[in-house]
Structure formats: structure tokens, C-alpha cells
């Protein structure tokens, strides 16, 4: 069996897909060179921007990665090759930025082109696939995430990408970026915390009083189906009226537009997943264990906290994970009604047709949502393993 595999190596299917994407990327522009942030630019291939030796070095490196993707079955080696590919692609785009920017010129914009994005997507796909094949324990996954974040932070701090268009936009908006990023995280986490405080008892109540369950879940379902923009709009009128009628509310920052309606809308969206998962989690707890707990003389509080909630916790945290990832994305839209957050850059960029500014808002949002998903998935899996 083993010798048979060695004699006639099988072509890896995902590897073939990754290689096809990578090959396609070579015909797409690697960077776009724009005279300023708004004007359309001209596309450049890797060969046109890097010195020939460096460009062929990159091609050779990518060819090695493709070979590994096609033939290597060892997941660790595949991961190493994919990470090598990520380094080659990002270093090439950083070098392109540095080489194409005339010294001292702050107007010209070197933007990563579609070729870069497709290549990055291909090696990224290969890396996540390799990690999936390795089935790392939750702690290892968190460690990998931390490592990746540390490397990215180091590269950003070192100024590796400073001559790329997105970082140019960052340089102009650095002060606002920190403020909006903080606001973004606060809106997502704050609305989640408020939702958990309300939804957990509500879920327990729904579990204990079955007649309530249908009504509560039904009402929350209706809220969930309202499009986010419509909900922001719906909340503007009552909150505006409240601010007008109660001066204290206005002093606290509760107005028809701004963070208040955004936080309230996110809170409302967060309720259903947490309540529903609390009910499902409690329903899944073995009735025999609950019966035994009562029969041995636990008070109903002891049964709830010592048996029911602990056994339901993995399902409840899964609900919290859904809400957190969903909120990080939804906060972006809050910028429309003056709620702030990274969406501010997205909508400004759309308004100015400055795609680099859109990316300045979008890339950190995706990174935040991705990190939150990895962290909470690891938490859920750890709890599941501990409790079987």
C-alpha cells in the first residue's frame, strides 16, 4: 500500500484547484499603479515591477508551493509550503510598493491588484486546508492565531507595507482609525454583553415555561428578519422622540442617530441566537441527570447552576460565537446612522470611490470576525472535550 503510493503519487485535488487559481493569477495584474487615490491606474505584472532576478525567484518559489500542493500528502509539509507561499506573495507586493513609489511622493498609489488577491487566496486556502487536515487541538489553533497576529503586527509596525495604498490611507487616518476600531469593538462586545445578560435568564425562563417559548422565540425571530438598515431606521424615530422628551437621555448620548440606535439594534439582533441556544442547550441535558440531582436533594438553584447550565454551556457559547461574529460584521453598517466603527471608512471610501479606504475598513473587520470565530470555536471544543 505504502510502496504503491510512493510509486504512483496521487494528484491532490485541492492542490490542483490551488494550482489552477495560482496559474490564473499570473495573467492578472499583480499591482495597480495609480497617479493618485481616485484616478484609475495601469495594471502591472510581477515581472514588470520587480527586478528580473527577484521576479523569477518569486515564480520559482510559487512553483515549489504548487508542486507541494499537488504531490505532498504530509499535512505539516503542506502547511509549511503554504506559509512560505504567503510570505513570498506578501513580500513581493510590499517590494512592489517600495520600488514603484518615487522617493518622497505621497500622491501616487500602489494598490494590490487582482493577481495578488487571487494568489493570496490560493495559498491561504492551502494553509487553512492543511490546518484542517492536521486537526490541531484548540490550544494549538489559538497559538497559531496568536503567532499569525504577532507576525502581522510586527510587519505593520516595521513599515513593511507602508508604500501600499491601504497603508497610505491608514497613514492619513491613523488617529481616527484607532478611535473607530475601539468604537467598533466596544459596539460589538457591549451589545453582546447586554444581550447575554438579558437572553440567558430569558432562555432559562423559556425552558422552564414551555408556553412562553413559542411567543418569545417567535417575537425574536421577527426582529431577526428585519433588515439591519431598516431596523436602524425604525429605531431612529422612538429614540429621537425619547431624547427630545427626556433631557437626561439626550445628555447620556441617547439620540435618534449615533451609537445608541446602533447598540440597541445590535442588542436586539443578538437576543435570538443566545435565547434559542440556551433553550436548545437546556433541552439537551439528560432528564435523568436532572431528576437524579433533584432526587438527591439539590435545591433548584443548585440543579440549574451545577448541572443544567454547565451541561448546556457548550451550546450556549456556540450561540454567543454566532452573535459575536455577526455583530462584528453588522457594526460596519452602524456607520450609516453615525454609530461609528470601521464602517466609517467603508462608507467614506464608497462615497469618494476610493477603494483603498474601503479596504482600510473592511480588512480589519474581517480579521476581527475571523479571530473571534477561532477563539470561541476553540473554547466550545475545549468544553465539549471536558464534558463529552
Amino acid at each position, binding site marked *: 500500500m505504502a510502496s504503491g503510493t510512493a510509486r504512483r503519487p496521487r494528484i491532490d485535488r485541492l492542490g490542483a484547484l490551488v494550482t489552477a487559481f495560482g496559474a490564473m493569477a499570473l495573467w492578472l495584474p499583480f499591482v495597480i499603479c495609480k497617479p493618485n487615490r481616485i484616478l484609475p491606474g495601469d495594471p502591472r505584472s510581477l515581472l514588470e515591477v520587480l527586478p528580473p532576478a527577484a521576479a523569477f525567484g518569486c515564480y520559482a518559489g510559487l512553483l515549489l508551493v504548487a508542486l507541494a500542493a499537488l504531490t505532498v500528502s504530509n499535512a505539516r509539509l503542506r502547511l509549511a509550503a503554504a506559509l512560505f507561499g504567503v510570505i513570498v506573495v506578501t513580500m513581493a507586493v510590499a517590494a512592489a510598493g517600495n520600488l514603484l513609489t518615487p522617493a518622497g511622493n505621497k500622491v501616487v498609489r500602489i494598490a494590490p491588484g487582482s493577481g495578488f488577491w487571487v494568489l493570496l487566496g490560493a495559498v491561504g486556502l492551502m494553509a487553512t486546508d492543511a490546518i484542517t487536515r492536521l486537526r490541531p487541538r484548540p490550544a494549538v489553533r489559538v497559538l497559531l492565531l496568536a503567532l499569525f497576529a504577532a507576525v502581522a503586527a510586527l510587519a505593520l509596525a516595521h513599515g513593511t507595507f507602508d508604500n501600499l495604498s491601504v497603508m497610505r490611507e491608514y497613514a492619513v487616518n491613523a488617529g481616527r482609525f484607532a478611535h473607530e476600531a475601539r468604537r467598533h469593538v466596544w459596539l460589538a462586545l457591549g451589545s453582546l454583553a447586554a444581550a447575554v445578560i438579558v437572553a440567558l435568564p430569558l432562555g432559562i425562563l423559556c425552558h422552564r415555561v414551555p408556553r412562553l417559548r413559542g411567543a418569545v422565540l417567535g417575537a425574536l425571530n421577527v426582529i431577526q428578519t428585519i433588515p439591519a438598515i431598516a431596523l436602524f431606521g425604525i429605531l431612529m424615530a422612538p429614540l429621537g422622540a425619547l431624547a427630545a422628551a427626556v433631557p437626561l437621555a439626550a445628555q447620556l448620548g441617547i439620540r435618534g442617530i449615533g451609537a445608541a440606535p446602533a447598540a440597541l439594534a445590535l442588542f436586539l439582533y443578538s437576543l435570538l441566537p443566545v435565547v434559542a441556544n440556551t433553550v436548545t442547550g437546556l433541552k439537551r441535558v*439528560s432528564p*435523568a*441527570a436532572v*431528576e*437524579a*440531582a*433533584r*432526587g*438527591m*436533594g*439539590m*435545591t433548584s438553584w*443548585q440543579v440549574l447552576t451545577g*448541572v443544567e447550565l*454547565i*451541561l448546556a454551556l457548550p451550546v450556549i457559547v456556540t450561540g454567543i460565537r454566532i452573535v459575536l461574529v455577526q455583530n462584528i460584521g453588522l457594526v460596519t453598517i452602524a456607520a450609516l446612522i453615525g454609530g461609528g466603527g470601521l464602517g466609517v471608512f467603508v462608507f467614506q471610501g464608497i462615497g469618494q470611490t476610493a477603494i483603498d479606504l474601503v479596504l482600510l475598513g473592511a480588512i480589519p473587520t474581517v480579521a476581527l470576525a475571523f479571530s473571534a470565530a477561532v477563539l470561541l470555536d476553540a473554547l466550545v471544543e475545549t468544553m465539549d472535550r*471536558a*464534558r*463529552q
Partner: protein
Amino acid sequence: MISVDNLSKQYGATPVVDRVSMSIERNSITVIVGTSGSGKSTLLRMINRLVEPTSGRVLIDGNDTAAEPPHLLRRRIGYVIQGHGLFPHRTVAENIATVPRLLGWEAARIRARVDELLQVFQLEPAEFAGKFPHQLSGGQQQRVGVARALAAEPAVLLMDEPFGALDPIIRAKAQEDLLDIQRRFGTTIVLVTHDMDEAFRLGQRVAVMSHGCMLQYDRPAVLLTRPADPFVSRMTGIADRAMRLLSLTTAGEAAVPGSADGPAIPASASLRDALSELVWRGVESAPVMQRDGTSCGRLTVATILARGRPG
């Protein structure tokens, strides 16, 4: 002693348990038997107030159980259910320690008690204390369930179909173990089952329930020889009632003075097994002997047959 006094439970207009009275002796095993829906589980659960009676009362050693908060009452009463109900997130030792912890025992005392119980139930403490319930076999889980119920040395143990989920061979072993445990700790056991064989094997007294009413409550032999109701006869079985009756008496109890040839029958064997042995050997009589070798006399086919008739 447990006195059940005119106890009823109604859900809406439907009586589930209807004016049941019974008196349960200390240090005995009482079995409540009935078909599903007969109210036997509800009756049991009213003793530890998992179900609150609609009317009537339960006295344990003369004290009304309604006088005390239910969770405190339950800590003094062991409780075993079908499918064991072990806590999946706690180890075997933590499961057994549940009630002692609720009662605030010292850690050292809890540890000693857990080890003692594991040994009694033939579960090596070093091997089993740290395991989780899903790592045990069905029979082991059931034993941990009983050990957990006995952890705080309760005077009363309530068991609701405790062996229902076990296969026949493991169930027979579990029943033997329960008889040993009862002799060892002197616990007053009330057990609910739908299995008449189990009721006859374990119960010193058997109560037959149907549609919420207690039809008869007496020694097993009396249920066979003087059934109070046609339903009781049907439950105990008519075709093999003579053999059932024989299974209730031991060879030692039925032996008469005299001697006989051939290998001795153990005094602890039931008359049913003794008769089977005599038929197999093709002889009319055999000697009966205690385990320590003292003779009890002999047993003849005629004496056995006489014991298998009513009256």
C-alpha cells in the same frame, strides 16, 4: 418505619394514586409492582416529595415528611433511577460524593466514604475514582448510581426501576448485589418494578398496584396462595404459580429429619432448584447441608410437592 397514610395524587380530575396506605418495615425490602401507568412511580416519588401529594401524608419514623423542606428531606433518602442518571461532567468519585458534599462533610471523610463504597461495589478505587461515567459499562454505571445513593448512609433507599436498562445476566448479578448491600447496611429499601420475577426475588413484601389503587400488599407467598383480586393472579402468573411458590422457600427451611444417599443439596437453594435436582438425578430424596457442613436432614419429592400447594 415508613407509614404511607391515605396518600392520593391527582392531575386535574384524574387520580394517579388513589388513597393508598401502607406500612413499610425497617430494614426490609418492599417492592411495588404494577403495569405502566399504575401509579407505582408516582407513589414512590411522593415518599421523597419529588411529587407533592394532593392529600394524605407520609411519616418516616413517626415524623411527617411535609414538615421539612423537600431538598433537606431528600438528602436523607437515597434515590436510584432507571438509566442511573449519573452526572456526565463529573467523575465517578465526584458523582458518589454528591450528597456528602451537599451535607458539608469534611473532604477526608468524603474521600474515605467514596473509597469504601467503590470497594463494596467491586470497583477498584485507584482505577475507577477518576473515570467519567461514559467510560464505564452499563453494569458499572448502575453500581455507581447505587453507590451514589448510599453515600450519605441514608436509612431509606428508594429505587425506581433501577435494573430496567440492564441485560438479564447483569441484572441477576445486580439483584444479588442489592440483597448483599441490604444485609450489610440494613437499609430500608422501597423498589418499584414492572417485573414480577424481580419483585419475587427481592421483595420481603410486595405491593401490587393497578390504576392508582393498591390491590394487595403482603408477603410474596400470600400473593400466590390467596390473591385478593383476579388482577393479582394475572400479574403473578397462573401457569407457573406452583413453581413460583417453591422458589420462595429454601431447602433448609423445608428439610425434615432423616438421612438420604447422594450428594447434599445446599440449604440456601430454593425448593424449585432442589426439585429440579431430584428430577434430574431420578431419586426420591437427597440430604441437605449448610455451607459449613452441618446436616439439616433430608428433602423428599413428597415434602417439596406439599410445599407447592396453597394452604
